[in-house]
């Protein structure tokens, strides 16, 4: 129970971080221009390509006990959030980017010429257009964060009731021969995955409502 609560809490925090910073990053990658932008754009996909256990080790190296910048968060909940941020990084960025690319700047210019401030333009024009992209990215990130194990297992310390996430809990239960306990938590994760898949389907259905007529 503690493991599930921890996982859900951490996953929600991570999704929130992704929604804000992921959207900001997508914005920078589409609208801004600077040296090395192509490289940054390429690096975004790294968490998809890199084995998660390697991701965990990299984070442990920089933010663990031997941290060269003196920032040791290993075996705390902060570490869990950090690890989940790493593996979910591309989702929101990659779903928002194409939408932002297609979005016509003229709409925003028109609004501005009619006297709308920065905030009004963002809230009433940009955000409504980006929302489906942000939502589907957020759901994908949530699904991934709930089930992640490789990136978390090395840096979280896996202390029961404190830093043991649901997937690690399942693994530990299996290894100590408690199949029932493992299955109970696994079922919750399974149901969550189904629900999130349905949610992604629903977002897709909503986005294509005009095409379907």
């Amino acid at each position, binding site marked *: 129970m503690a493991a599930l609560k921890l996982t859900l809490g951490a996953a929600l925090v991570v999704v929130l971080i992704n929604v804000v*910073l992921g959207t*900001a990053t997508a914005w920078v990658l589409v609208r801004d221009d600077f040296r090395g932008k192509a490289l940054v754009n390429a690096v975004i996909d*790294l968490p998809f*390509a890199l*084995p998660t256990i*390697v991701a965990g*080790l990299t984070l442990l190296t920089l933010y663990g006990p031997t941290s060269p910048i003196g920032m040791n968060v290993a075996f705390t909940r902060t570490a869990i959030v950090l690890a989940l941020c790493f593996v979910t990084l591309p989702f929101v960025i990659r779903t928002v980017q194409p939408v932002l690319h297609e979005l016509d700047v003229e709409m925003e210019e028109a609004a501005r010429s009619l006297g709308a401030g920065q905030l009004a333009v963002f809230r009433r024009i940009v955000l409504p257009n980006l929302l489906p992209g942000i939502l589907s990215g957020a759901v994908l990130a949530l699904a991934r964060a709930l*089930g992640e194990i490789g990136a978390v297992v090395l840096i979280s310390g896996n202390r029961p009731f404190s830093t043991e996430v649901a997937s690690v809990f399942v693994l530990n239960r299996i290894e100590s021969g408690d199949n029932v306990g493992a299955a109970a938590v696994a079922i919750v994760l*399974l149901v969550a995955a189904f629900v999130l898949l349905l949610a992604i389907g629903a977002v897709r259905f909503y986005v294509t409502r005009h095409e379907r007529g």
Partner: protein
Amino acid sequence: MGRRVGLRAVALGYLLIILLGPLAMVFYRTFQDGLHPVWQALSDPNTVHAFEVTLLATAVAVPLNTGFGVLCALAIVRRRFRGKGLLNAFIDLPLAISPVVVGLSLYLLYGRTGWFGGWFLGHGIQVLFAFPAIVLATVFVSVPFVAREVIPTLRELGNEQEQAAATLGATRWQRFWRITLPSIRWAVIYGVVLTTARCLGEYGAVAVVSGRIEGKTETATLRVEDYVLNFNQAGAYAVSLVLAALAVVVLVVMTLRRTREEAV
């Protein structure tokens, strides 16, 4: 202008903290004590064996999932049948589900008291804690990638060319090899690359079903964990570096593909 630079700093700072900083650190730490410990770890027979297990499982999973992915994509885009929506949704399941849950289901199914496990053991085949289980886990988690890439390409392609070929007397087989496959080949290649990356990096499902017996059923990713838990930092970094190098190759392919798409 100030706002724009501020946002750029926030976005790049975030990437630096989460992505680039940690990665640079691993490269630095790997070679901190020179090349000798790296070489020693990589030439350890158990490490070599771990890489062999990973590569072998990948070599089974990738062709299997490529064939299955292309077939599924063709069925979903071109055919009408009952349960098509269900297939379309379920093919994504391995993306949404925790790998540990995948591992647990295999564990319960192929364990001594599982539905299939008893039968296999009766015929003298050890599935769980042996190579077959590693392959099963790897195949399961890497199912969706080829289909996910091929489906949109097939949708855009339409089937006029194939119909034209059919009216000219081409058999179904000829139409597939001469028209469909060449048109979707980039999507297939991209899907294969993503599948390979997933297979090489699989950890959660394999951790449950492999039994992680050193030199026997340990994969490369499990080897990394093993080294970390035994405080052999150099070994962990060395194996990680090999896996990270493979990831960079994947990344290059992903970037090439995006550049191609933007050029079209």
